């Protein structure tokens, strides 16, 4: 039984081209949508997003009495948490596949791995967008429930748009982190420790002109939430919204690029 090669014209055994890979993206998107909509974890994360939006803004409006608060500001407060939930969703889109062994089925069905990365990134982006919209809607509802005035809404569309850029990109960042770590606990704890602890420490110790380029510093900068501990020096070097979007988007792109490289390099069990 020596090795030999038999050329064939069988329709399924023809070699694929790059354009045929591209044509596989809608199928991969459909598959990812079925996956995200048929596991309760993601519904729980969406529920937590809505709940945190509602409770954060209602509690802030109800219990903070030493300053005048308006619904047009308070509704955004929970978006920091929303972006984390979006990132966790992105992480789980990949790590749950790696940990439960379904990644093998995915990669044998679609060997062009970049197609899978595109599909997961798109679904994570859609999830981040959806989480952002519902989280902010819940935040607005909570503010109104607390009896806050809406305030001047002229700048609201711009604020909402940049906030949605943050939550959308957070979902995609999660996919990149998931592909790098491959393990849910590692990726999620890494995300939380970096965003909530390490970056806050670095912000204290680094020069403001450097700290402004930290990923979540830039991401949070998109939310237009005035930080109470911002010094004049920090305010002076703050990046504009578009610059913050480029910094956060850059980190997201790098994470996805590294994750994609590793997805091609690593063997799959």
């Amino acid at each position, binding site marked *: 039984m020596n090795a030999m090669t038999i050329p064939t014209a069988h329709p399924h055994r023809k070699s694929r081209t790059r354009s045929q890979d591209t044509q596989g993206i809608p199928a991969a998107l459909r598959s990812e949508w079925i996956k995200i909509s048929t*596991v309760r974890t993601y519904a729980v994360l969406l529920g937590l997003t809505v709940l945190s939006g509602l409770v954060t803004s209602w509690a802030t409006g109800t219990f903070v009495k030493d300053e005048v608060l308006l619904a047009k500001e308070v509704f955004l407060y929970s978006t920091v948490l929303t972006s984390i939930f979006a990132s966790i969703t992105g992480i789980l889109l990949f790590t749950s596949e790696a940990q439960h062994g379904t990644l093998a089925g995915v990669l044998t069905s*679609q060997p062009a791995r970049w197609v899978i990365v595109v599909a997961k990134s798109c679904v994570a982006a859609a999830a981040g967008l959806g989480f952002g919209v519902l989280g902010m809607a819940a935040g607005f509802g909570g503010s109104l429930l607390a009896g806050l005035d809406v305030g001047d809404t002229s700048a609201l569309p711009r604020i909402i748009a940049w906030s949605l850029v943050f939550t959308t990109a957070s979902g995609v960042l999660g996919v990149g982190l998931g592909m790098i770590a491959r393990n849910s606990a590692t990726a999620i704890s890494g995300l939380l420790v970096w965003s909530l602890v390490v970056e806050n420490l670095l912000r204290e110790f680094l020069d403001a002109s450097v700290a402004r380029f930290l990923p979540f510093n830039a991401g949070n900068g998109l939310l237009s939430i005035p930080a109470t501990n911002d010094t004049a020096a920090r305010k002076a070097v703050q990046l504009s919204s578009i610059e913050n979007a480029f910094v956060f988007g850059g980190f997201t792109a790098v994470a996805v690029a590294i994750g994609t490289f590793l997805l091609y390099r690593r063997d799959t069990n």
Partner: protein
Amino acid sequence: MISVSGITKYYGTRVAVDDMTFDVASGRVTGFVGPNGAGKSTTMRMMVGLARPDAGEVRYDGVNYTDLLHPARVVGSVLDARCMHPGRKARNHLRALAALSAVPVARVDEVLTDVGLETAANQRAGGFSLGMRQRLALAGALLGDPEVLLLDEPSNGLDPDGIRWLRTYLTAFAARGGTVFVSSHLIAELAMFADDLVVVGGGKLIAAESVEAIIGRNESIVVVDTPQPDQLRHLLAERHIRSEQVHGQLQVHGASLSEVSRLAFEHRILVVEITEATKSLEETLLEMTSSSAEFASA
């Protein structure tokens, strides 16, 4: 036909698969056997592009797996029966796979029926027994109605009925012209339905032959219980036939039962019992792979 040509895989400095070359023919069931750590699973993962060979290649009628236009319609594989999200229902698990392979969703219920899981279609996979998981994994492999089935230890966790069903299914699949490549540590089970065997040990190919050819490697032994062993041994030696006395019986190598019994009869040697012993396929394979077994029993 699957052509595996010189595939080699290193993990660090350890060679897991060493220059393995064999073919898997269409219309036949090919068993893939070897002890633990022989490189079976690594080889199978390389065959479907999940692991990158350091050298060599695998081709399906001339095309690399990762280049196949519709891989799921050419090869259905089950490399790990646990490959499902425990929180997802069986039907949804298959719907996601079908969507990715652009297989019509109607096929999901067909394969669930094929593997006998139609009543469990709306149950979450986390509550499945290992046998049910094996069936669901096989359903996933069958979604694209493939020409080739690559299965790693598919009978693990199956009850006797399930094993018989699997054997019948795979035999029928091959009879329709399909290619079946199945690994198993249950050699006796494989012997019941495999046509060919690929035997590996220590990451190296030991044999790639038909089951008949491997059984044919055996030298049969004629065991004679006689009160005159020395006389019979002398007669055998005159005819250059090797024999030895083991536990009070004479074991004769290289002669048939009829030859030995005729010789004894012609020289009036009393024979109490005479039998021909042939090693089972399992014994033969264990002997073939014994030197390469990584985790041998004491």
